[in-house]
């Protein structure tokens, strides 16, 4: 059967991304033809800024070279502009007469830069900043001429100005508005930005309206019209009479969330510019530029960065419905069902996006439908803005101006050059501007997009998420100004330069990709904020943090943790293969992330029916010991509440000697660690120790740390030791989404450091205070007060119920703090404190789940899973001698 034909018009970032996604899903479905008006393969347009700045070359920014098309059997027509779509005969026709017939057509024609219709606008030396040709022209001009004028103080204009300055030109930025980037910044932040750009040698003329561009031979001016400067991300060509930007104006045709200007909206009824020839035929060249106020400055190069306009001419001529973009539905289909559109040329729910991240999302959805899967929808994006290349950390999102009904939280530290403003409305963040320190940009953005209630976070908001007790990167929080050789990821020893290089050379756009390629942020995660900033400062707004609200379990499925847990219970799925086939897992056997997660979810749902799958556990949990870097294991027996006996200590000492265990040390959880045990010796060590497993290796209960308490301590008001022992016994052998640590202190001096534990209990005169969701690791988090209990029994019930709720509702690998931050302390209090029947039921479920868990060491000391611990031995001579038989020393006893 003949394959269906897919034709793509526009060989840019969105169109080719759609093809890549399509090839992943259905590599053989179509005969594909691509038309590109530019004479290049697909390149990373956003990196034209570093190219202009001299940091990269065109070669570095190619995403798909010509070979890629050939390898994928794609017919590529470069340097051929399509001039007509014949929807009746279903073919497209290019300027040179090339034709291609289609069954499906994809429009990805991007945008055109807007050129001001001022006299002289077509002189040689007047350019836009959109493609390789423009960039080359600017680089060329920089080597011959001195004076550059950039019209437009938006993102694009500033990046252009910065690049030209770095190439040695004398650069003036002309901007119509009273401050720079008025669509993304408030006046204060813009002022700071202007200062530091001035320090880099840029000049600014604000509130200047261009009247005329003057060349060696000039015609008299035709008309004067005011145009606001702007850049990519947002085009709203200003009205001539508009004097002040008005970010709060709700754009028409929108749902409930009024999209702020920085959503990358191309909109606002503008008057089309006069017909304009970008390649002026005259031989004269621009020499100066004159403003409405009569002043004039010299200019050998004029860059117009005043906005972009969706490139819809072709679609309109073909009779497709357009309204500031080719109108598409949630499947990226236009009014002609055979024709799809993605990228800057498409208008979705009234918005044409001008940033890469939403376009990639569109591409993914479109590919899904082209592949005839039909299960994906694009529902719009909230975007945020970052400035790249200039070495300045800047972040902006949402409604950053505030106004009626909203309040502002502002931090301004002129000494450090830091300015932060968050706009809060009804206890929710609706916008913000960060300057100089953007480490928390992603966090704020997440709170904004998820519409999270921030009442409880409020007093901590400004100090930010990454500033509180974070370790591993010297407290740095300003990525753009970091030197290249500075270490970002302490865990994996990755420097900033390595990350930037990988992002640029490998064309990375997401945190996941950076993690994969560089390992940065892939271990403890404390540097995630920094890595995100580096991404942002390298690729700009193309980076958007992943949506926390809907997180697929892993790459093997599109279903979320929550959906999967629900179905496991409702559909009575009781094994990993059953769950995988029910959800049509993409990869055979899943992966090293989802298998342990599924194993835990099944175990939690069916504590008595589910048969634990050791092959779906990380090695530590399979071997019930911690693997060390030399491949040996450590053994930490349980010592309830840290209280031991001479007999116990003697046994530990004897075992250590008998098996020549090289190191013994006290753990941070007040018990003893036997380090350097060979795997094959583990069952014997356990048998001789005859102590329960301490679960120091698992996503499980770890220890309950205690202080001495009222029995001995002169300050003690409660018996913390026995409270701790009772808790540790009750929770013994409990698996959880992640490790669970408790501590009990006998008085508020809190010697057991209970307030950085998953559950911390602090004795007071009249009972016990219970704190939850603390964390003492990579990122210190102080536990939050849950409730006060009067008796030990009440402590058990509250603690047990809290843990069971965590076990049932957290995502695998969430610590309690991550889960509580997402679910909200209000919710936790409601379930645990207010709903007493619910609390009792939770506690009962926990007790029931733990009722028949066996001690894993005891089982294995008696021969369970013996093959896990028993290697097969070959004799060396035997191998060299070439015998067919092995010398089988058998399974060690």
């Amino acid at each position, binding site marked *: 059967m003949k394959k269906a034909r897919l034709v793509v018009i526009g060989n840019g970032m969105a169109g080719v991304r759609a093809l890549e996604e399509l090839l992943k899903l259905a590599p053989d479905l179509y005969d594909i033809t691509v038309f590109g008006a530019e004479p290049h393969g697909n390149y990373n347009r956003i990196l034209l800024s570093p190219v202009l700045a001299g940091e990269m070359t065109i070669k570095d920014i190619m995403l798909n070279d010509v070979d890629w098309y050939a390898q994928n059997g794609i017919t590529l027509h470069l340097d051929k502009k399509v001039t007509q779509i014949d929807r009746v005969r279903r073919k497209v026709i290019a300027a040179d007469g090339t034709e291609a017939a289609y069954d499906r057509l994809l429009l990805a024609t991007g945008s055109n830069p807007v050129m001001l219709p001022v006299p002289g606008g077509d002189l040689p030396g007047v350019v836009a900043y959109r493609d390789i040709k423009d960039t080359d022209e600017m680089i060329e001009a920089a080597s011959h001429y001195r004076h550059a004028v950039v019209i437009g103080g938006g993102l694009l204009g500033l990046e252009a100005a910065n690049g030209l300055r770095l190439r040695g030109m004398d650069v003036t930025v002309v901007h119509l508005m009273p401050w720079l980037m008025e669509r993304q910044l408030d006046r204060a932040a813009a002022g700071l930005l202007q200062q530091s750009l001035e320090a880099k040698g840029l000049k600014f003329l604000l509130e200047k309206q261009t009247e005329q561009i003057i060349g060696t031979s000039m015609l008299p001016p035709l008309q004067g019209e005011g145009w606001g400067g702007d850049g990519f991300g947002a085009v709203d060509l200003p009205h001539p009479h508009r004097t002040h930007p008005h970010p709060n104006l709700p754009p028409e045709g929108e749902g409930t969330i009024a999209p702020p200007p920085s959503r990358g909206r191309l909109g606002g009824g503008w008057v089309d510019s006069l017909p304009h020839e970008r390649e002026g035929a005259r031989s004269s060249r621009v020499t100066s530029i004159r403003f409405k106020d009569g002043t004039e400055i010299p200019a050998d190069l004029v860059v117009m960065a005043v906005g972009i306009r969706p490139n819809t001419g072709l679609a309109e001529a073909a009779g497709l419905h357009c309204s500031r973009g080719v109108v598409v539905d949630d499947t990226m289909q236009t009014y002609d069902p055979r024709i799809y559109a993605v990228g800057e040329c498409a208008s979705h729910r009234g918005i044409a996006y001008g940033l890469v991240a939403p376009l990639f999302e569109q591409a993914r959805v479109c590919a899904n439908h082209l592949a005839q899967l039909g299960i994906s929808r694009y529902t719009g994006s909230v975007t945020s803005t970052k400035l790249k290349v200039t070495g300045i950390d800047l972040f902006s999102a949402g409604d950053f101006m505030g106004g009626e009904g909203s309040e502002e939280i502002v931090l301004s530290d002129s000494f450090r050059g830091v300015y932060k403003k968050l706009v809060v409305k009804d206890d929710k963040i609706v916008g913000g501007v960060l300057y100089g320190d953007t480490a928390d940009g992603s966090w704020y953005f997440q709170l904004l997009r998820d519409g999270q209630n921030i009442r409880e976070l409020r007093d901590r908001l400004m100090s930010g998420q990454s500033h509180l007790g974070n370790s591993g990167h010297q407290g740095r929080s300003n990525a753009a100004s970091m030197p290249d050789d500075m270490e970002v990821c302490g865990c*994996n020893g990755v420097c900033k330069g390595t990350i930037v290089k990988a992002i640029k050379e*490998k064309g990375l756009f997401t945190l996941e990709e950076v993690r*994969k*390629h560089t*390992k940065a942020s*892939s*271990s403890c995660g404390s540097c995630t904020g920094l890595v995100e900033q580096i991404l942002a400062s390298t690729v700009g707004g193309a980076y958007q943090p992943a949506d926390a609200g809907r997180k697929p379990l892993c790459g093997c499925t599109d279903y979320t943790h929550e959906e999967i847990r629900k179905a496991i219970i409702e559909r009575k799925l009781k094994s990993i293969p059953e769950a995988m086939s029910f959800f049509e897992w993409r*990869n*055979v*056997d*899943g*992966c*090293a992330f989802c*298998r*342990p997660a599924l194993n835990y979810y099944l175990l939690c749902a069916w504590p008595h029916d589910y048969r634990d799958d*050791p*092959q*779906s556990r*990380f*090695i*530590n949990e*399979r*071997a019930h010991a911690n*693997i060390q*870097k030399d*491949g040996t294991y450590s053994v930490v027996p349980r010592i309830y509440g840290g209280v031991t006996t001479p007999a116990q200590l003697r046994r530990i000492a004897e075992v250590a000697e008998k098996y020549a265990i090289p190191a013994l040390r006290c753990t941070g959880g007040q018990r003893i660690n036997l380090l350097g045990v060979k795997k094959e010796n583990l069952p014997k060590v356990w048998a001789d120790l005859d102590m329960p497993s301490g679960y120091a290796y698992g996503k499980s209960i770890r220890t309950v740390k205690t202080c001495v308490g009222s029995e001995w301590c002169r300050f003690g008001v409660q018996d913390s030791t026995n409270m701790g022992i009772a808790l540790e016994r009750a929770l013994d052998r409990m698996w959880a989404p992640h490790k669970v640590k408790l501590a009990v202190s006998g008085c508020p001096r809190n010697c057991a450091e209970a307030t950085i534990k998953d559950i911390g209990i602090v004795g007071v005169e009249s009972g016990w205070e219970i704190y939850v969701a603390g964390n003492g690791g990579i990122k210190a988090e102080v536990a939050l007060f849950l409730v006060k209990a009067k008796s030990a029994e009440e402590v058990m019930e509250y603690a047990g119920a809290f843990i069971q709720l965590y076990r049932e509702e957290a995502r695998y690998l969430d610590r309690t703090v991550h889960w509580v931050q997402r679910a909200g302390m209000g919710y936790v209090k409601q379930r645990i404190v207010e709903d007493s029947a619910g609390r009792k039921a939770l506690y009962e479920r926990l007790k029931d789940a733990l009722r028949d868990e066996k001690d894993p060491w005891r089982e294995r000391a008696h021969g369970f899973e013996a*093959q*896990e611990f028993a*290697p*097969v*031995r*070959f*004799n*060396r*001579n*035997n*191998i060299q001698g*070439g*015998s*067919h*038989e*092995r010398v*089988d020393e058998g399974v060690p006893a």
Partner: protein
Amino acid sequence: MSEWMRVCPLEEIPKLGSRVVQTGNGDIAVFRNGADAIFALRDQCPHKGGPLSQGIVSDRKVTCPLHGWAVQLDSGEAVAPDCGCTNRYRARVDKGEVYINLSEPK
């Protein structure tokens, strides 16, 4: 030269699991996947020598327990974007017994 050496009965290697074979020349990891295919690799991750035998097996890959590299069971090569390779040996099942051939790495 065929130097097939018997390792153990197939059922002594769990599905999606492995068995370590100690030789005079270091450890070999023998894997069994969900489809009962058998693979043998040097038990050393191409990254920092982690024991691949202790990793999680899925399909034709094993994920190293130390830093999470994925290594292809049938070639010994790390899965992109990581890059590196560990020795791979021939392995087969005959009448329910697992054999490996260490004569030359493939």
